């Protein structure tokens, strides 16, 4: 006899208990520490901070531990916390020209003021699994040099000196920076909110879109003008004080791509730019972001919009992985009311076409019993 399935509450509680057990894993192995995640899985921490739009390495590390290493789940956890925080205002624009550089490469010049600085990169490592990492072998201390007290000028500033590249774009003086976490998206977007959306967009999605532009779905032909990673100071203007005060430092990755542009009726022939700026060390994301940013500026330059990466509504509406994962995974929630309605329709349509329902007879028999 059918009795309506009860006990959802107990089932949920038990599922969560099992989840906690699996998260902890073998009790004979020491639990992983938040500090270990923060210092030894720092690129994972960086990604979570970037896509959660919250710069807090220890909370990001906690989220990674809590999510068992599921990055989107960790991003979600941190975002759900971020949304409860009060918003006091916005900082002054960070000056990446004054960045304390850890890495800086340019693909457009062999050498340039400030030099090329490889920094902590996977580039040029041979991807051979390192058995030494199975144990805790001593690691050499890195060689460092005394940083130059002067700012390392940005490649775009060098190009701009000759007028060969469009200058830093700016918004009108009265323009207050948008906040996509506080205002619903409105298409077409302004570039500030679009860059915000890209900065928290899914790394994989942006990577694929950027890749598609390189393979001919919108031709952007980029050069990696400059990629720089390092610490910058965040300052906030306090009206009570009348001057801005430093709040602390954040690590950022900035990528400026340099793109060809033939010029138009209103603009001279010059290089154009795509911009990527991401929390932490995340070169892949920053580069992908700069390519997609440039592709999305198609309309601004009067270029034909022919590919997905140029389509603002398509790109921005689908770049948020927390939204995407929620909606895709909601399909596992019960839908039996709607499915019942569809079942009824399909049965009726089949009956109208004279298709004998395969199991109607047994159904009638059962009902008659």
């Amino acid at each position, binding site marked *: *006899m*059918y*009795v*309506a*399935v*009860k*006990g*959802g*509450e107990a*089932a*949920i509680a038990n599922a969560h208990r099992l989840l906690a057990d699996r998260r902890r894993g073998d009790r004979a192995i020491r639990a992983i520490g938040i500090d270990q995640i923060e210092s030894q899985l720092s690129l994972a921490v960086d990604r979570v901070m970037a896509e959660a739009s919250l710069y807090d390495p*220890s*909370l990001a590390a906690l989220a990674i531990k809590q999510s068992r290493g599921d990055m989107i789940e960790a991003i*979600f956890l941190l*975002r*759900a*916390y*971020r*949304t*409860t925080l*009060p918003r006091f205002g916005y900082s002054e624009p960070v000056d990446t020209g004054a960045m304390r550089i850890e890495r800086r490469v340019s693909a457009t010049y062999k050498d340039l003021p400030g030099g090329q600085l490889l920094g902590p990169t996977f580039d040029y490592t041979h991807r051979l699994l390192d058995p030494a990492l199975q144990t805790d072998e001593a690691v050499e201390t890195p060689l460092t040099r005394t940083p130059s007290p002067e700012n390392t000028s940005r490649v775009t500033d060098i190009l701009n000196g000759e007028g060969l590249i469009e200058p830093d774009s700016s918004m009108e003086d009265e323009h207050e920076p948008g906040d996509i*976490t*506080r*205002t*619903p*998206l*409105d*298409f*077409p977007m302004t570039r500030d909110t679009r860059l915000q959306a890209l900065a928290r967009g899914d790394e994989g999605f942006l990577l694929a879109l950027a890749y598609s532009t390189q393979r001919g779905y919108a031709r952007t032909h980029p050069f990696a003008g400059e990629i720089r990673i390092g610490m910058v100071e965040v300052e906030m203007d306090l009206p009570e004080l009348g001057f801005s005060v430093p709040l602390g430092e954040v690590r950022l990755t900035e990528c400026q791509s340099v793109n060809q542009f033939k010029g138009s009726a209103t603009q001279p022939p010059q290089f154009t730019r795509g911009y990527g700026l991401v929390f932490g060390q995340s070169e892949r994301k920053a580069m992908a972001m700069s390519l997609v940013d440039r592709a999305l500026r198609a309309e601004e330059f009067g270029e034909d919009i022919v590919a997905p990466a140029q389509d603002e*509504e398509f790109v921005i*509406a689908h770049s948020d992985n*927390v*939204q995407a*994962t*929620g*909606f*895709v*995974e*909601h399909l596992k*929630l*019960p*839908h*039996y*009311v*709607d499915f*019942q*309605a*569809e*079942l*009824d*329709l399909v049965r009726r*349509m089949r009956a*109208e076409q004279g298709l004998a329902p395969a*199991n109607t007879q*047994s*159904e009638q028999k*059962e*009902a008659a019993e």
Partner: protein
Amino acid sequence: MSGLATYNFAYLDEQTKRMIRRAILKAIAIPGYQVPFASREMPMPYGWGTGGVQVTAAILGPSDVLKVIDQGADDTTNAVSIRAFFQKVANVEVTTRTKEATIIQTRHRIPEEKLTEGQVLVYQVPIPEPLRFLEPRETETRKMHALSEYGLMHVKLYEDIARNGHIATTYAYPVKVEGRYVMDPSPTPKFDNPKMHMSEALQLFGAGREKRIYALPPFTDVVSLDFDDHPFTVQSFEKPCALCGAEGVYLDEVVLDDRGGRMFVCSDTDYCEDRRAQGFLGDQGVPLKEAAE
């Protein structure tokens, strides 16, 4: 990290609630119109009722009595989870009884029992835009609503008839509100559409991921789209509920075995239990006391 454990009543901060209430008021003022709102990230995933949860959180007061259903049932996992969330963050009284509730949050159903004045029905909405599957662009659909340009929808319904002999939309069946806006009733079966018309209760619709709120104030004219020669009809079931014998209600099909055995039972669990408590019995039902044992 010390402040992590403290949350405001009903989770959302008061500023956010005020923002949502403003959107709700605007929605009530323009029935059927989708009001953009600054939807927040909630501690449950997008697509799992974040819009409904935000609307409920914004209107919930300490004296409210909350009921949460999913597919008509109080005990489906997501309904249990959302109800537990509000018990935790708002400590409000909860119920499974439709008539006792002041706020009912729902996914995919409208309760069978007629809602009354003072009650609020909060719908969880996945895709608020009824035109979305005809036109994917928000910039276009907004224009279509502004101009009352709903020809595309009628063409779609007409094509259904031309192809199948009848309209092949069974749930999320579009309605026209007060003769103006075409609205998505959320993925409720079209069976429930007539219940929206002239309802005494306030009906609020929240779409979190899509950042839209819309509303039907009490006693609003809600008409399911149709044609003169193909009038709107609702699903009907051949047999009454196998447990409580109710007729003219929406039934779920329950597969009993792998030999084609089926039974049909009320999708609205509270309605079904209430009837059985009153002594009504379907052909496979058992009196409520026995079933509990």
